[in-house]
């Protein structure tokens, strides 16, 4: 059963009198339990697509079915509720609350959850998830006391606190060195395999995309390619992608 289905999604921004089309008819199906990389250079529309997938934005036209439910035209409050229940977000710049402990950061989304979760329960869940991402010893540390990789792991824990079926990661390794990037990506793979969480990685880095089983490439608001790949055997297409990215003068950092 498809978890996500996009049917002919258009998104046009109005800047002054000009219409700027960003997405020009994107159709997409994502099954439950997939690990997908959404690739594209900057300005390709991948962020816009992610915003629409993540229910942060509404498409201008087209249908977005999530769990057999049309969610494309929900109101802002309904989308907020949907995000809270079914989605987790990991960002490039971590977006942790400064001067709040890892525990507080992780349990923050719970305060917007609809079900009444007691403080003890919230703490228990946060500790559990922090243990899961290997930060058991650092639950009382503030972001400034954590390394980049640790901060991103706190962010992942925060994204998982509401046990969402879908996790969006927007350039999750953009601010990390290659070693910690590998660790974080491994964690995504692990979550995908062990917990069956559908993960959508947005990236322009082919090395990151390599970790995904399926790569969707987007260029100029259209899906250019949709391929199954695996980290074990990077096929020819990966090489092509690298070339393409190179053409668009977006060199991959740390790629060698």
């Amino acid at each position, binding site marked *: 059963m498809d978890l996500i289905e996009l049917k002919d999604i258009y998104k046009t921004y109005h800047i002054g009198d000009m219409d700027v089309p960003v997405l020009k008819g994107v159709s997409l199906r994502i099954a439950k339990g997939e690990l997908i990389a959404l690739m594209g250079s900057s300005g390709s529309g991948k962020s816009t697509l992610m915003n629409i997938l993540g229910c*942060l934005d509404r498409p201008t036209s087209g249908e977005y079915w999530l769990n057999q439910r049309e969610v494309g035209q929900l109101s802002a409050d309904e989308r*907020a509720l949907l995000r*809270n*229940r079914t989605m987790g977000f990991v960002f490039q710049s971590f*977006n942790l609350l400064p001067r709040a402990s890892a525990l507080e950061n992780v349990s923050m989304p719970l305060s*917007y959850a609809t079900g009444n979760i007691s403080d003890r329960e919230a703490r228990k869940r946060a500790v559990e998830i922090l243990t899961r991402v290997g930060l058991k010893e650092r639950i009382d540390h503030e972001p400034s006391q954590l390394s980049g990789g640790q901060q991103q792991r706190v962010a992942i824990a925060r994204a998982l606190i*509401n046990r969402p079926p879908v996790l969006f990661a927007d350039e999750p390794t953009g601010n990390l060195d290659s070693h910690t990037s590998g660790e974080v990506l491994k964690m995504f793979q692990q979550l995908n395999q062990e917990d069956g969480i559908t993960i959508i990685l947005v990236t322009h880095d082919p090395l990151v995309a390599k970790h995904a089983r399926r790569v969707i490439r987007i260029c100029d608001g259209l899906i250019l390619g949709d391929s199954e790949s695996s980290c074990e055997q990077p096929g020819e297409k990966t090489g092509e992608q690298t070339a393409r990215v190179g053409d668009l003068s977006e060199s991959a950092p740390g790629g060698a």
Partner: protein
Amino acid sequence: MKILRTIRTALQALQRNPMRAMLTTLGIVIGVGAVIAMMEIGKGSSSAVQKSIASMGANTILILPGTAASGGISFGAGSVMNLTPMDYEAIVRECPSVRSAAPVVRARTQVVYGNRNWVPSSISGTTPSLLDVRDWTNLAEGEAFSDRDVLNANKVCMLGQSLVRELFQGESPVGKEIRIKNVSFRVVGVLTAKGANMMGSDQDDILLAPWTTIKYRVTGSPLASTNQSSSSETSSTVNSLSQLYPGGKMSLYPVQSVTQAADSPMPVRFTNIDQIMAAAVSTEEIPAAIKQITEVLRERHRIRGDEADDFNVRDMTEMTKTLSATTALMTNLLLSVALISLVVGGVGIMNIMLVSVTERTREIGLRMAVGARARDILRQFLVESVVLCLVGGGVGILLGHGGSKLVEWLLHWPVENSPTAIAAAVIVSAGVGIIFGYYPAWRASRLDPIEALRYE
């Protein structure tokens, strides 16, 4: 439950930047502190001013006997002698709005000390309660005569400052003997200076003595022959030694015989007083006090429903008006000062909250991304500013109260606690938090999560 969590979130958010939170609150702290201090000091001075106006006699009610008329000729107020000491006692006993009352017996005659003499503008026979009625309880020297002195018609007196100056010339008068109409009085106390009254007559040119002494020993109406027709100031009775030192036991009111009581349904008026001075509990109580006094006296004087009063009750309307005008002025002045400082504090809160919203744009974006609805964000920022204002208000109350106590201690200004000001400060600071926190909170809630997350 939900709101508790919101409050905790707000507290955590504030804790994250304690310096800014403190500076933000400072506006409210100073505002509320100023309000409380102003209110307490202002109320203190206001009641001090009111008290001094009241001490000029604003709360005083004067009860005079009625008018006598004979053959179409009226003799003016006070020409009937129908006020009795018992009337005075009844007023004290039965009128709850009357703080205290005193009978007054007047005399105008020469006072002699050594080789000096003087005719004070008023020689009043009264009871010690007159000092209370006229707000004159602080004595410059010595002490007041007592109720026992009144009962025993003791020859003691208190002098006003002008009289002391005229007779004693710098000497301390306490314990000295002066003579009034050849009756020797011991000076027991000296009154504080009160100055001239509103009409310009010197209030310090006065001698106070027990009314019984003035009535029976000075104005010369011996008890034996007390009746209304003979008791007049111009009586030419010579005081004999036996009257100066009466051997027999004196009773204030001759006891009615059984036959007398049975014969006359009207109480026999054995002795009269010239006027009764009463003080109302407060300025607002004056009309009630007048009503009660009128009722008591009408009943005592056996006046039927539609008959005219045989006495006059007067109050100091002019002074009362001044008093209430002053009070209103003071209250309005304080209120406007309070409002201005709170508005300034509120603008400070709004300013910092707007900065805070801008600074925390990404946090807002994140909260929205993880499922905070616009109203959650609105509530969070609103609660933050209300918490700031309430904490500021609390600190401000302590500071303002401490400040006013300090002023009282160092400068000896009159200060009065004001629970209303404190309650108002709490309500107003919460109100300021809501009103001035609403716009920044609304701005925060209207942010687009995508834009907010990308904000640098």
